[in-house]
């Protein structure tokens, strides 16, 4: 896939904790003290220690086991009021940390004043960890031994339910963080996570299905993982002998993975950084009706089990639950301290070090967990329509002509079906959704009651979303 530039919001996932290596924690504190001695206006450090694993598999077998071990300090330094530098390094000892802090101060002194920095949280809050129970799996280290066996079980399950070939990746691990700021706030957190993608194929290339599972506690996840594998196997079997779609207007029933990738982009556009750089559809839409009354969407940094849930943001501000869309109307943007000031508001606890893929990071707002309300329709009720309708279970390669108008296209892949007489009928292939996402948003017709958390290759922001039916979507196909 050719990415061009990918606007990536780095979402820090934190949770309560205490077992970070004491050396790293003390080096973060030391970095802050070095900066204070140099009389910088602000120095803020985030230490992170992680050990993450991945098992990749294809053609019914494990291809490779991976592990990443990382100790990192990320530092924000501000001099002369608003000359900003953000750097990172793997710390060795106090001598090296001192050298890095001095280098970063010198770098900041070479910068020009940034209009994109107006301070950080200055109050030290008592952190309420009660929302973050069950975000750390105390058996994670033992689980590393067991994981290959779990994956082999998933492969077998996909085959038993109809797959001929199974591929996927299983990522899991633990992270601990320690934040310290010369402005006051400190905090330490830890979490664990897992994230499985299983893709099942028939012998032919174009009959396939996908299953996803993600969450915080790997050792309690086996049932979900096996179910995801079973779903992939079943979909691939049902997708055999798929037929070419005819171009035209269709209603589309988007399963949660598809809805998260497409519809999730609108609430994630409620971000002043995206608006300022021309990458948002919501710059001039505050207070406008964008979706039907029954659509409510929040950015919830405190969502229990959320893969972006943390007690505080990078600036030390407590997380909030920010209503983005209320009864279909755009109500708020997310903010950090700076954009809160810019927009005559307050921080919503969304401060993050945002990474554009290359170049320096910047301190700016980033979405946490995007949370759609659950609907009240069963899946059978969503299928109960007399309109020309397609059910899509997976999509990829979503690209825009304009992020402002949301003119885009995406390619459904894996199982897709025509819906006829309230049931899934003919399996379909070889089509593209080419439309405007704002149109889809206005045409949301019904929401399922099957909300799940989605995070995978095509959905970088954890999104809690049900199956959603959208009217009048434009379908295109190859002309030759």
């Amino acid at each position, binding site marked *: 896939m050719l990415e061009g530039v990918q606007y990536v919001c780095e979402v820090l996932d934190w949770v309560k904790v205490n077992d970070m290596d004491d050396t790293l924690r003390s080096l973060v504190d030391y970095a802050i003290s070095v900066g204070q001695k140099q009389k910088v206006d602000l120095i803020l450090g985030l230490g992170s220690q992680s050990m993450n694993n991945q098992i990749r598999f294809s053609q019914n077998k494990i291809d490779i086991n991976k592990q990443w071990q990382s100790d990192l300090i990320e530092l924000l330094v501000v001099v002369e009021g608003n000359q900003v530098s953000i750097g990172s390094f793997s710390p060795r000892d106090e001598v090296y940390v001192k050298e890095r802090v001095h280098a970063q101060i010198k770098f900041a002194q070479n910068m020009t004043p940034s209009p994109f920095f107006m301070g950080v949280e200055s109050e030290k809050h008592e952190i309420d960890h009660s929302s973050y129970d069950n975000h750390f799996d105390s058996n994670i280290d033992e689980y590393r031994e067991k994981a290959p066996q779990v994956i082999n079980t998933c492969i077998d399950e996909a085959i038993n339910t109809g797959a001929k070939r199974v591929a996927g990746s299983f990522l899991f691990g633990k992270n601990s963080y320690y934040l310290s700021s010369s402005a006051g706030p400190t905090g330490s957190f830890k979490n664990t996570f897992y994230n499985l993608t299983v893709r099942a194929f028939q012998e032919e290339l174009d009959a396939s299905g996908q299953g996803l599972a993600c969450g915080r506690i790997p050792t309690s996840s086996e049932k979900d993982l096996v179910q995801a594998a079973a779903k992939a196997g079943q979909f691939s079997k049902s997708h055999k002998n798929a037929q070419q779609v005819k171009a035209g207007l269709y209603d589309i029933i988007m399963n949660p993975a598809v809805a998260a990738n497409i519809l999730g982009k609108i609430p994630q556009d409620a971000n002043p950084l995206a608006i300022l750089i021309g990458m948002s559809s919501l710059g001039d839409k505050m207070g406008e009706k964008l979706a039907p009354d029954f659509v409510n969407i929040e950015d919830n940094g405190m969502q229990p089990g959320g893969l972006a849930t943390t007690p505080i943001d990078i600036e030390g501000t407590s997380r909030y639950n920010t209503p983005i869309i209320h009864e279909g109307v755009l109500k708020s943007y997310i903010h950090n301290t700076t954009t809160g000031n810019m927009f005559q508001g307050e921080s919503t606890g969304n401060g993050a070090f945002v990474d554009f893929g290359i170049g320096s990071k910047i301190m700016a707002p980033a979405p946490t967990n995007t949370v759609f309300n659950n609907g009240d329709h069963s899946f059978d009720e969503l299928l109960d329509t007399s309109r020309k309708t397609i059910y899509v279970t997976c999509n990829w390669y979503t690209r825009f002509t304009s992020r402002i108008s949301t003119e885009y296209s995406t390619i459904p892949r894996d199982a897709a079906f025509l819906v006829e007489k309230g049931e899934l009928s003919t399996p379909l292939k070889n089509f593209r959704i080419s439309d405007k996402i704002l149109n889809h948003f206005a045409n949301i017709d019904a929401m399922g009651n099957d909300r799940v958390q989605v995070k995978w290759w095509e959905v970088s922001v954890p999104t809690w979303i049900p199956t959603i039916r959208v009217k009048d979507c434009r379908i295109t196909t190859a002309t*030759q």
Partner: protein
Amino acid sequence: MSEYADLAEFGMEYAQDHGADYSEARLIDGQRVAFVLHNGNLISGSELPWKGIGFRVLCNGGLSFVSVDNLTKKAVKSAITTSVKMARNSNPKEKIDFGPPVSNVAKWKVPAKENLRDVPLETMITKLQEMDKVAEDAGINTRATIFEAQSLTKYLVTSEGTKIESDLSMLKFIGVITAKGVLDSEQRYVDLTRSTGWEGTKTWIEEVENECGRIAKVASQSDHKLTGKVDFVVGPEVVGIICHENAGHPSEGDRIMGREGAQAGESFWRDLTLGKSRVGSDHVTILEDPTIPGTGGYYLYDDEGVKARERVLIKNGIITEPLLNREFGVKFGMGSNGSSRSSDFNREPIIRMANTYMKPGDFTFNELVEDVKHGIYMLSFTEWNIDDRRYQSKYVGFECYEIKDGEITETMVRRPVMELTSIGLFSSVDGVTKDLNFDFPGICGKSDPGQGVPVYAGGGSIRMRGIRLG
């Protein structure tokens, strides 16, 4: 040579001592200087030391990868112990084989006259601000600039005797440009990535001025819609992305054999026969070559220590050679052709493109155009995508002009859509020009976790007959 080279060698040998059949260490050490500008304002910057080691281990046919950024013996020992254990425990149903040993010893470096480490920060900032100013003067109202100057050394050492030292120098620049238009805003990424020293920035102001002028022109003048069947004359930028997406990706050996099945996908080449299956007209020959200096995909030895060379993916419309690393070189019975790349120390080396392009033909540009009764000249593109078998593709034109009776007119065509299969697209080509331009630098994404590697793509101009607009 990095001060951590001994540690990389220690880790490689420690793996051998602990039961590895094969081990390798890939050390990256250097620095990255980076800035972000918004509408001319410098909003963030940093100088990042960048170092770490990635280890791969083969044990009883099982493969593992471990990376560390904490460069101490203690951390390396712990990583290697884990790595050997993971490889041994994976007990694969089919043992992984890297084929005959590779034991190349070499040093190479990116040609760079002006070392990026010697360039004062003020010089970099001034250059970026000057570039922003010309974009503003061209009428671009929203501009975000992301810049990075990378100076890295890479050291690959393997248990088979390979030792490759390389000095890398890369400039990355991406401008996110939005121009207000008559009908809609027009958006485009301006990518000036290249492997070079600071001298590579000499033409940047001119390039940004030219590109932003074109974006502003599209925003103000592109309003003519066309439908029906037309001929296309397509410029090097669009030819480049077509070569990358419709020929380069499906030629990746790991895709063809399913290893990327879960994320990046498989390939329609799986059901074709190398040397026999036709995917395009006789005019279509597509090459891959990492050894072109200055390009984003430049390297002389790949990340498995195999010497880089040109690969002929498609010759006169027939598929000929897939991109292969050592593992898939064995599976295809063809050996590696030096296609293994890793985006960083913390990523597994996998099969990647470098610089992909259409071989020049024997037409002049005027000869291509003069024979078109009604058509579109597509210089550049905006939205695009392709399915994960690399068969169903879509390219939306950005700067496009109507061709009438063999002449390119001043009428700008608004967002014409080519929605074609790979075979439909390459089969429609009936002429390729003699020139060669690498007008498309980009970051190619693949795998999970994602690995963005710099690539170039290009060609001459091509003519495509009888394309029904999407």
